[in-house]
């Protein structure tokens, strides 16, 4: 689905690929390290890497294998909350992960990330100055930024009565059954938090309680809680409104031009996803090569086109072929269109546990089970009737066996 977006750039890029076939920067950096034939396990978000040669793009993992001789095992996840327990509980060993800002903060605090010597990466110079020394990793010791995005409201122009400007459209009775909600606690909580003017990083129990109430109130209007199926549901016109990440909107709009996007006036969440090396890595050296490779402007350009998010790579931002994407008003809003933004921060353990408790409370709420009690009572009564009847019949039989007909 992301391919369509790219046809525009095909011609330009085709020429470019032909040129760059064997021209990555500092190729010698990748060679003669004795890593040929080893493997690297990459754990990334779904639809978050260029994996095709079509439309003049580069298949990033295949190119890396070709250049270094290191085999890439690529696995995907749907959310930070899905990725975290897999690393934490050590069920599998990964060499590269791509957590978001607040998750990086948490993983650093819990000692789950290996330090990265960015000085040793020749391509680190391409990281835009806007994204170094970020709050989650002030000394740039653990992470290398990969993508930047914001959450906004995607809507179908033909299905809404007027273009929404506020998050309260998600509580609008008129769109009952046409609203989708994002299916992870932090992103879902962020929306009522912004509506009420609370911080996204609130630890206040009353505020969280209020947020929970609003989400429960919203539930009857919802068509569902979804993540990756948003593509299917929005592109087919099954749903009218959903809060989601801007990069995915850019891709969906290519399939369904009726879709539009707005940064609601109350403010939105901004996030940085960054490449990290978890403590459990088995191939640290290869992971460093991989990170350096991802920073290469040619590779980063392919990724930027394919993924459709804003890039923190200065090499891409300065690239002449990227100008059209830079002009995209959703990815790079300008002037008055720049929304108010707030990052997620890591929260104290108790708050996180509290949030996930509230989240499951929201999820299980709203089922009317009175008919279930009636149903069980009926089934129970019928069961008892048959059991008793069977007893009676057996008794009679026994009686007849013991006292054969006289």
């Amino acid at each position, binding site marked *: 689905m992301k391919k369509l977006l790219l046809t525009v750039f095909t011609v330009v890029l085709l020429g470019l690929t032909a040129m760059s076939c064997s021209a990555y920067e500092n190729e010698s950096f990748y060679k003669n390290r004795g890593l040929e034939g080893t493997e690297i396990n990459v754990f990334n978000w779904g639809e978050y890497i260029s994996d095709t040669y079509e439309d003049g793009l580069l298949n990033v993992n295949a190119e890396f294998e070709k250049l270094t001789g290191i085999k890439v095992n690529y696995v995907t996840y749907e959310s930070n*909350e899905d990725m975290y327990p897999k690393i934490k509980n050590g069920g599998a060993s990964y060499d590269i992960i791509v957590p978001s800002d607040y998750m990086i903060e948490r993983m650093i605090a819990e000692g789950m990330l290996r330090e990265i010597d960015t000085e040793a990466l020749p391509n680190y110079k391409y990281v835009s100055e806007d994204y170094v020394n970020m709050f989650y990793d002030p000394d740039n010791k653990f992470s290398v930024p990969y993508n930047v995005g914001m959450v906004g409201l995607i809507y179908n122009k033909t299905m809404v009565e007027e273009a929404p400007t506020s998050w309260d459209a998600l509580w609008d009775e008129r769109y009952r059954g046409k609203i989708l909600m994002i299916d992870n606690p932090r992103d879902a909580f962020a929306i009522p938090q912004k509506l009420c003017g609370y911080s996204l990083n609130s630890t206040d129990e009353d505020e969280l309680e209020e947020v929970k109430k609003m989400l429960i109130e919203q539930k009857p209007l919802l068509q569902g809680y979804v993540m990756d199926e948003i593509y299917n549901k929005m592109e087919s016109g*099954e749903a009218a409104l959903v809060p989601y990440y801007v990069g995915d909107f850019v891709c969906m709009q290519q399939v369904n031009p009726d879709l539009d996007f707005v940064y609601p006036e109350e403010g939105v969440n901004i996030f940085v996803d960054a490449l990290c090396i978890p403590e459990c890595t088995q191939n640290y050296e290869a992971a460093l090569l991989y990170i350096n490779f991802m920073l290469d402007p040619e590779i980063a350009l392919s990724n930027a086109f394919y993924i459709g998010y804003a890039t923190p790579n200065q090499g891409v931002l300065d690239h002449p072929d990227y100008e059209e994407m830079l002009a995209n008003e959703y990815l790079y809003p300008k002037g008055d269109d720049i929304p108010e933004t707030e990052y997620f921060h890591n929260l104290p353990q108790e708050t996180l546990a509290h949030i996930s408790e509230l989240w499951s409370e929201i999820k*299980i709420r709203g089922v009317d089970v009175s008919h279930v009690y009636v149903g069980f009572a009926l089934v129970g009564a019928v069961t008892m009737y048959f059991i008793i009847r069977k007893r009676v019949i057996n008794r009679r039989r026994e009686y007849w066996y013991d006292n054969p007909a006289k």
Partner: protein
Amino acid sequence: MNKKSLTAKLTASPYMVWSAIFIVVPLIFVLVYSLTDSQGNFTLDYVLDIGKYKDVMLNSIWLGFIATVISLVIAYPLAYIMARTTANVQRTMMILVMLPMWMNLLIRTYSMMIIMQDTGIINTVLSNIGLPKIHMINTEAAVVLGMVYNYIPYMILPLYSIMSKMDHNLIEAAEDLGANKFTVLKNVILPLSLPGIASGFTMVFVPSVSTFYISKKLGGNTFSLIGDVIEMQFKSANNYNLGAALSLVLMVLIIICMMVMNRFTGDDDDGGVLI
């Protein structure tokens, strides 16, 4: 013949090892996790927390029960007809029953979602021929339909195997003695097929109650079944202890349901289900 020969022991040993590793050990893990907190100290908090989830649990059992009953009603006559036809037809029908199972459950359920949604195949056809659309997706009925669709082969197979083994002479004897069709069904066929009903019931009921993917895709994830709640504890909430405690309680409830079920078949038939 209580003492088993060495050969018998040796033949059974691969499965013994298998079940020890993949059934007993995981069960012990579930038990240990559900009775400890995240620090590993003994606690009953999680098991006692179940009260919060009682509605979800009841609803899951109820929907599973409905799905099982519907499967039984559909499968019973089918299995009977199948067992009575010629070998060729039997083979064809068996393939038709098994065919969906060659596909992955996730794919089957996902395509059900695409077929049933408001802009899906059924509704597109309906609106093209001028009929009103039917809202199907994201309802409890859709979830039950998904369960029936996915698990009905497990009901048909045991019923079919017991009915094809049934001695037809008994039915003829009953008819000779003057029983009408209904009496034959009630007093001969039904009692003889009870072990098949019992094992079919178990094989549909248990996975239906604990399913999570079906309710997520066809129910829109707005009403959760207990399987969804358990999955959430393991997958994203990172609360293994609560997840294990919920699984444990669910297991106990399913065992109780199966014991009730066995009241009907347990005492005078052998075979049937385990418990």
